[in-house]
């Protein structure tokens, strides 16, 4: 089954046409990578999937994006519920300036999804275990999240998203501020998570896309140029532009 379907989707920043007629069907329980040169609209598209673009003034859209069988640009959609279903991890780790525990529990608490302390404890532990932080941090849960290493912070941000039990996780160059060892370990984490979640990730790093994604979307100046399995994109791309980008012509 497919979980994200874009149909003739356009996005404008005021008069600037940033996404042009995007049509794509992203599959469930897979990692889909989005590649393309800087400024081609990767983030814009990713941020359209949880409607976080709405927070920017002057953004307008046409067309549809269906997420979990629902047109998310329909007026009746509950945006907050949508965003709980579609979690997002940003480029720079951005934990809240509160304790590690409170970071993970934040989404549950504020929305009163859970109120009993022991229930929240269970979810916090499970989320931290899923991102492989539990062992290191279980005695430091009360400490500020800002004292963690960048890698730990980024894992914590993933745990924070997992705690509200989304179906889809969007990652926007979430490894770019990490060192190579940390990148590798986050990649392992993503491979583990894809069994339970649908993952869409933007990356500048083509090796990374090749290593861990099943499908790849190639974008160029607001157009979706090619969508195919990663294997095909990297071994026998159909479009000329894809070929050029893969071989490094755009730098």
């Amino acid at each position, binding site marked *: 089954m497919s979980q994200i379907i874009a149909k003739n989707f356009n996005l404008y920043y005021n008069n600037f046409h940033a996404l042009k007629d995007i049509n794509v069907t992203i599959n469930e329980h897979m990692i889909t990578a989005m590649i393309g040169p800087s400024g081609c609209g990767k983030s814009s598209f990713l941020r359209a999937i*949880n409607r*976080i673009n709405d*927070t920017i*003034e002057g953004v307008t859209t046409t067309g549809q994006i269906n997420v979990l069988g629902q047109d998310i640009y329909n007026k009746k959609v509950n945006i*907050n*519920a*949508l*965003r*709980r279903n579609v*979690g*997002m991890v*940003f480029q*720079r780790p*951005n*934990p*809240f*300036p*509160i304790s590690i525990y409170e970071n993970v529990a*934040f*989404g549950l608490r*504020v*929305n009163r999804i859970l109120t009993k302390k022991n229930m929240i404890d269970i979810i916090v532990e499970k989320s931290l275990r899923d991102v492989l932080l539990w062992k290191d941090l279980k005695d430091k849960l009360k400490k*500020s999240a*800002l004292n963690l290493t960048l890698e730990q912070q980024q894992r914590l*941000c993933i745990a*924070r*998203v997992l705690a*509200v039990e989304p179906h889809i996780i969007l990652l926007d160059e979430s490894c770019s501020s990490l060192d190579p060892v940390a990148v590798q370990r986050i990649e392992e984490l993503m491979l583990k998570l894809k069994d339970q979640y649908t993952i869409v990730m933007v990356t500048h790093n083509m090796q990374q896309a090749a290593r861990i994604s099943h499908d790849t979307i190639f974008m160029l100046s607001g157009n979706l140029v090619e969508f195919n399995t990663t294997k095909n994109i990297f071994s026998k791309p159909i479009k000329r532009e894809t070929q050029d980008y893969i071989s490094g012509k755009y730098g």
Partner: protein
Amino acid sequence: MKINPKLSQQLSYCILFLVTICAITPVVFIFFLIIKNGVPNLTIKFLTSMTKDGGIFPAIIGTFTIVVCSIIIVFPVGVFAAIYLNEYAKRNLLTRLIKLAIVNLAGIPSVVYGLFGLSIFVMFCKLGVSIISGALTLSIMELPVIITTARNALNNVPYSFREASLALGMSRWQTVKYIVLPNAMPGILTGTILSIARISGETAPILFTAAAFYVPHLPHSIFDQVMTLPYHLYITSTQVPCVSKTILFGTALTLLIIVLTISLFAIIARLYFRRHRKW
């Protein structure tokens, strides 16, 4: 002529240091003067007896109630207005005009606010010369300052926190309440501390709206007029002959202590928020 870098470095250091000394010397001197002359007069009797017995108790109560009332009014109004302007308002012409107006309001001389308060609160609203009229006038005067400092404090909260919160499915208001406001609180309270200090010492806005030359009894409600420390100080030092210097300095010192005490609450609150939120 070219001065060598080492010399110019030392020269600039000296000049900056001297200017700083010049700036703080008067303050230190005033403090010293007030404390030295005021302390001997700062007896329990002076602080707690009525005016006819040579005390300043009514003025203390007056200043205290006016300041507390106006902070109770101006703090929530100012902070909510700042939240609206910073977190909700679209960037259009109207918002720009409002922001411009706020900046300009902060530059109006305080006596103008006094006259404004006289015509609106005292006369038009028929609140009379009273604590509430004075407090409202001071609130109006301090509102632009509170809004501006609160907006700066809100602005200083990194945008990435808001984005992370919204992306977790929090509503805009939840984001403000649980993320933005707690992180902006230290900054907002710093602004409030300065406002309290300014409000406590102002004479002009309450001259026509709240302060009385002499009231033989304590205020019974917020609709009574009161004596206040700054006005009392002004009256006793200019209008009443042969008042001993120590009484004047005692009054000044009391005013100083009240300002510091009220500010202390804000400082403690700020420390509390600082300790709990850090980034």
